[in-house]
């Protein structure tokens, strides 16, 4: 439970849209080298939590403390700064790749800030200086390493939009990882995958947690995935946190069974 120091602390997060309270006083902690699953029925406010963390929405109330080279208060930062400085990366519920660009280009765009610096804000790059070429080669090497991990090396020069669905999901994760984040937020990465792809995805997520050593926040509907790979589970319902704990505890929690799974106990034996 209380292993390492927290990576992100979400405190009293509340998000209101007009009269609708999409997220209502939610607090939880994400730790490095852990997968924290956020589950809950449709419309529970899971994606909204992500949107607050990654700066797409400004929370109505709440504090989002992200630890890194220093402490960042995410609710005060602009969207792109959160990726750039606080090093929080995310994927989207509906895949958002750059469809006309190739797989490799997608992974290079993710390394934009690093490369921009190396290219002297394009000046060195335009002049074709060595320094930039070396940086670009390093970026390509990183991209290639990720392509190997998601098994897409052969497709590197194809437009991302032409890939099959499962490959696009993996590519989006790889793209987020190419930003070299401390925290990775994944919004239903297994949605629409077949069982085999889903199993591969689990392996990938576990390796990201164990090999890359970063923290993962995972929104997931598939209970088998949650039970198998997450270290900690947060349950939302109607915007409120109704339970929190280790997967095994959550599985038995009556409040969760009532709210999230109806009264049908069967469904949680994934």
């Amino acid at each position: 439970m209380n292993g390492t120091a927290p990576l992100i602390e979400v405190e009293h997060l509340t998000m209101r849209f007009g009269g609708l309270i999409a997220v209502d006083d939610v607090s939880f902690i994400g730790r490095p080298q852990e997968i924290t699953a956020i589950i809950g029925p449709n419309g529970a406010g899971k994606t909204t939590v992500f949107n607050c963390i990654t700066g797409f929405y400004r929370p109505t109330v709440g504090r989002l403390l992200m630890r890194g080279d220093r402490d960042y208060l995410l609710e005060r930062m602009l969207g792109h700064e959160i990726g750039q400085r606080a090093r929080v990366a995310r994927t989207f519920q509906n895949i958002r790749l750059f469809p006309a660009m190739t797989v490799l280009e997608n992974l290079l765009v993710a390394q934009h800030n690093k490369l921009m610096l190396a290219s002297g804000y394009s000046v060195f790059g335009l002049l074709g200086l060595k320094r930039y070429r070396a940086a670009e080669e390093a970026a390509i090497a990183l991209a290639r390493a990720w392509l190997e991990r998601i098994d897409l090396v052969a497709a590197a020069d194809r437009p991302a939009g032409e890939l099959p669905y499962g490959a696009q999901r993996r590519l989006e994760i790889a793209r987020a990882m190419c930003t070299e984040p401390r925290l990775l937020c994944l919004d239903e990465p297994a949605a629409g995958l077949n069982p085999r792809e889903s199993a591969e995805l689990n392996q990938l997520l576990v390796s990201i947690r164990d090999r890359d050593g970063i923290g993962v926040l995972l929104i997931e509907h598939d209970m088998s995935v949650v039970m198998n790979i997450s270290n900690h589970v947060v349950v939302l319902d109607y915007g409120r946190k109704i339970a929190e704990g280790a997967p095994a505890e959550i599985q038995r929690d009556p409040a969760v069974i009532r709210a999230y799974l109806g009264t049908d106990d069967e469904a949680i034996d994934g």
Partner: protein
Amino acid sequence: MDPRLPRMLKDAALTVLVAAALGIFIVGFRTVDVGSRTGLSFDYHFVDLGVALIVIFFGRLGLSLAATGLRWPAIALGIAMIAAGASPMKLPSGFLHWFVTLGGVLLVIRAIWPWADQAIVAAARTPTGRVIDQIGTRWLGWLLLGLAIVMPFTPFADQKTMDLGVLILTYVMLGWGLNIVVGLAGLLDLGYVAFYAVGAYTYALLSTQHGLGFWVVLPLAGMLAASFGVLLGFPVLRLRGDYLAIVTLGFGEIIRLVILNWFDLTNGPAGIGSIPGPTLFGAVFAETAPPGKQTVSEMLGIPFHGIHRLIFLYYIILLLALITNIFTQRMRRLPVGRAWEALREDETACKALGINPTNTKLTAFAVGAMFAGFAGSYFAAKQRFISPESFTFIESAIILAIVVLGGMGSQIGVVLAAVLLIGLPEWFRDLGNYRMLAFGIAMVLIMVFRPRGLIGHREPSIRLHPVAPHPVKSGGSG
């Protein structure tokens, strides 16, 4: 007798009905000013309208036939229309001849399209096809460049052709400049001509009032235009795409109106004249040099000829256009260029990756503006007279049409589109009057039928596998 025929006939009749409702007042009654107190009377054009409606009936019928796969009747109808339009048969107006002929051509194209498409794809798969495809994608640019370089020395290079060449190249350059903004970064800029105007007025003012030469002012004009781009872009680039378009349109008009009304600086609607042309190593292109200067013919020891100036101007714009192109190609391979394209594809995803959208858009906007500034400077030096009339919204629209038609983001596409949109109407003077009408219709048709433009193929900015298998896709996109 095809059972679908009655439905098609009904459809064509309905189309005619709608067209008649559209045309009856606007086309049927042409208002003419007779000068009396009551004002207007009419020229009636019901015959033209009637002929046009008949054409529309058969055109629509032909399209339905083609769509249901009845190719041959459709082709026959199309050929009949072409014959009618091209025949010496007297139609009430020249426009109708064009209307019938073009309608027929479009119909024939539509009818043979599926078949032609297949044939092209099949042909591209054969070995010779592959070679031609390679030449098309790899060498077409070089071929065109070679042509452009030797053009002034060919026998066709008379005054008129050279003028046209200069005109086309100017639009090619503007198109390439705007392509950075629209094609790569996906920002619809409807006020591009404003930066062109800034460049033109910068040179006109600095040369006529402070005696600065073209080559000194050229970089200044580019920088000034780019600064304008940053200044205008900074507050508005956060806006959504379509709002941005309207705001840039507003900015374009504001700049034009300021030029029009700021008499002290710009001389208002009367414009600025006697702008000196560009010099070659300090020598001027004229029969006699002003005191203290040399003419080019003296310097080179050749007899004076008016065409020399034109050839010189031609090479300047060719050079400027090439610089634009090379710069763009390099930028595209740099992080900033990839970020432009990524922004065009998905701004939200860019933000999630830590890319600052405003700054990235701003660079695209400024670089685009800079090239417009260069082109504007050149325009002033070539024309030797500028006035606000040259910088209206229509000009922005023409440049945009070139980019859209060419295929947003495609460099070669811009060239082809510029030749098509600027060159053709100049060659066929008849068409001149209908040029803007045709532009407008072409923009709609492109969006409907070929939203990726003439050249829809995108070459990756970088490859992991150097000799990647290059699958030949559908015919036109090679």
